[in-house]
């Protein structure tokens, strides 16, 4: 029903566009000068058709369930039910009206279910009537306005402005919402686990929190030495460091090669090929690391007499580095290519070689962009999950030996939230605390990146 109504409104919108434009042509044929191009008249009418419909639809969606519920529950109002029981009654009658109720049917519930159905159908038909009459009223009003050739361009532009504003607002509000959900859960977590233990504790063993029987009261002392985040922060930065050791030199050098040395033909093929690396799903990198690189490193290490874990930080970090190469190479290639040719000419003309020109002129000029691409790569490395989960193990060892397994923030969040979780449990909330710290770290990185870029920009422009 809603879908039919919606389609009908869309059709109405198109029709009003058509009529608006037609009206404009009629005005034009009387030798009057239009205040805007004919299609603006059409858009104007279509907007006046869509806005009231949209407003009424949204209001209806918000208030209809509440009002229906109030009306039904008013029957029980003075029978001494508790709020919870009333809610249950309401849900039961709703289920019955849909034919999904399996419990015992009492006459009371049956009566409510019937009432629910009739209320719904009244609501539905009155919605159709109200929406359609609102559309007709507003379209008639708008049609009168364009008949008198009043302004249409400004309202249409304002409407577009508002639509675009709403879109960006939605993105911002989502971010704010995510941050707030993180904050509240994090605060709850730190009510049980002291902040100090989290930030400076060196044992991370969230499985221990599982042992608790949910009927027991929370006893913070049993969590001491459970949620010490130092090992996983260390692991996160360690793996990211290994990844950047691979990605920065290779990415930067291939970027320079593509931008400065490669012939047009090589570049034409090589660049898309490198960018394919960026398109590989991380889970594929993950099993490449876990099933190919990890065992290979183990064998190599064993043959050299080293003890290498099959799931090592080196395997995860190395493969992660390969994943990040295309980001750095492609971005730095773009930045280097956008350095003006006149600077190269100036340098060559005074007798500098290609490598001197790159080192002394092009690289410094492109540095802000290159730093930006590197920091973007670091953010990727810190936020990467799948490769670590698959290739570096899940045990949070505090180690700086790249041949041992270690774990990261993201991998631990996965470990915590896989399977059944109880809300309000410190173990689940630990995931939020970790998410919050991850968010703070990447936020700081982004701020630093912006600062760096800005600083160099001031220097070079």
């Amino acid at each position, binding site marked *: 029903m809603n879908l039919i109504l919606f389609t009908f409104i869309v059709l109405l919108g198109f029709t009003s566009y058509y009529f608006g434009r037609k009206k404009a042509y009629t005005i034009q044929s009387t030798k009057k000068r239009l205040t805007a191009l004919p299609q603006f008249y059409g858009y104007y009418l279509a907007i006046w058709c869509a806005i009231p419909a949209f407003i009424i639809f949204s209001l209806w969606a918000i208030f209809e369930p509440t009002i229906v519920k109030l009306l039904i529950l008013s029957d029980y109002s003075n029978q001494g039910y508790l709020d919870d029981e009333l809610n249950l009654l309401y849900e039961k009658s709703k289920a019955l009206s849909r034919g999904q109720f399996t419990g015992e049917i009492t006459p009371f519930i049956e009566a409510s279910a019937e009432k629910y159905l009739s209320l719904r159908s009244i609501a539905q038909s009155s919605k159709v009537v109200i929406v359609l009459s609102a559309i007709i009223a507003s379209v008639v009003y708008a049609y009168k306005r364009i008949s008198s050739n009043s302004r249409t361009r400004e309202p249409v532009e304002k409407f577009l402005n508002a639509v675009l504003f709403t879109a960006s607002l939605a993105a911002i509000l989502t971010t704010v919402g995510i941050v707030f959900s993180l904050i509240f859960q994090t605060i709850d977590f730190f009510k049980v686990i002291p902040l100090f233990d989290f930030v400076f504790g060196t044992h991370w063993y969230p499985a221990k929190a599982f042992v608790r029987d949910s009927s027991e009261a929370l006893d913070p002392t049993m969590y001491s030495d459970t949620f010490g985040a130092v090992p996983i922060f260390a692991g996160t930065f360690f793996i990211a460091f290994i990844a950047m050791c691979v990605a920065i030199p290779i990415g930067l050098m291939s970027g320079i090669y593509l931008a400065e040395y490669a012939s047009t033909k090589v570049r034409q093929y090589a660049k898309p090929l490198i960018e394919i690396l960026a398109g590989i799903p991380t889970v594929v990198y993950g099993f490449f690391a876990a099933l190919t690189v990890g065992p290979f490193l183990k064998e190599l290490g064993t043959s050299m007499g080293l003890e290498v874990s099959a799931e090592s930080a080196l395997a995860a970090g190395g493969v992660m580095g390969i994943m990040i190469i295309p980001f750095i190479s492609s971005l730095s290639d773009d930045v280097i290519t956008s350095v003006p040719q*006149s*600077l190269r*000419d100036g340098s060559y*003309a*005074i*007798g*500098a070689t290609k490598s001197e020109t790159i080192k*002394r002129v092009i690289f410094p*000029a492109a540095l802000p962009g290159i730093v930006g691409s590197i920091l973007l790569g670091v953010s990727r490395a810190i936020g990467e999950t799948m490769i670590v989960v698959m290739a570096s193990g899940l045990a949070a060892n505090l180690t700086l030996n790249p041949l041992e397994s270690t774990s990261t923030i993201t991998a631990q969040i996965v470990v915590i939230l896989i399977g059944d979780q109880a809300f309000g449990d410190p173990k689940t909330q630990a995931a939020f605390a970790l998410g919050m710290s991850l968010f703070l770290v990447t936020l700081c990185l982004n701020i630093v990146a912006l600062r760096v870029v800005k600083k160099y920009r001031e220097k070079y*422009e």
Partner: protein
Amino acid sequence: MIKIKAKDVDVFYGKKQALFNISLDIEENQVTALIGPSGCGKSTFLRCLNRMNDVIDICSVKGEILINDFNINDKSCDVVRLREKIGMVFQKPNPFPKTLYENVSYGPTIHGMAQSKQEMDEIVETSLKKAALWEEVKDRLHEPGTGLSGGQQQRLCIARAISVRPEVILMDEPCSALDPIATAQIEELIDELKKEHTIIIVTHSMAQAARVSQNTGFFHLGQLIEHGSTDKIFKNPDTKKTQDYITGRFG
């Protein structure tokens, strides 16, 4: 005395021929102006003289260009040394995004011309003085070169070019992006520079060619139509085409 001798120079961009059979002698310590309508090949010819066309993949140069009786199109020619001897100033001022000092010391550094900081300071100072920029910038040598005005930037580029004491300076429409006052300053500078350097200037302004040059070459559609002393070209040209261009009947 002849400094540069071009013999039968042809230039191709891919399959398209841009210059046909150019033969031109350039006098030492004089200013030679190359004039002609847009796209006639005068800039292309200028870029042949320091092999800047090497930078363009599809460009190929045929023929002989003798500088001090040495053919620079020969395989044995070291482009780095060549460009040390033949400086170039471009149409749009293109200072590096570095400080004024670094801009001027760039050439001497890559050619290893200064043994000490003191020597380098001297080179920078003399170059800036010769470029008539020293008085304006001596207190802010360590500020970015891109912060100067257009005319100052162009004089900085000239200082950069003369810092390696080139024998020849090529100028590719050096004043086309500048206002009349800055243009006058550069022209005055060119007159001064010709005492020590041979100068070849490409220009769109015939008035400028007449003001600054002793010799002029007129290019049209990739061919050198006429060349000779500026006086003669402007007052009594041999060909009708030159006459028409000089008097503004085409171009």
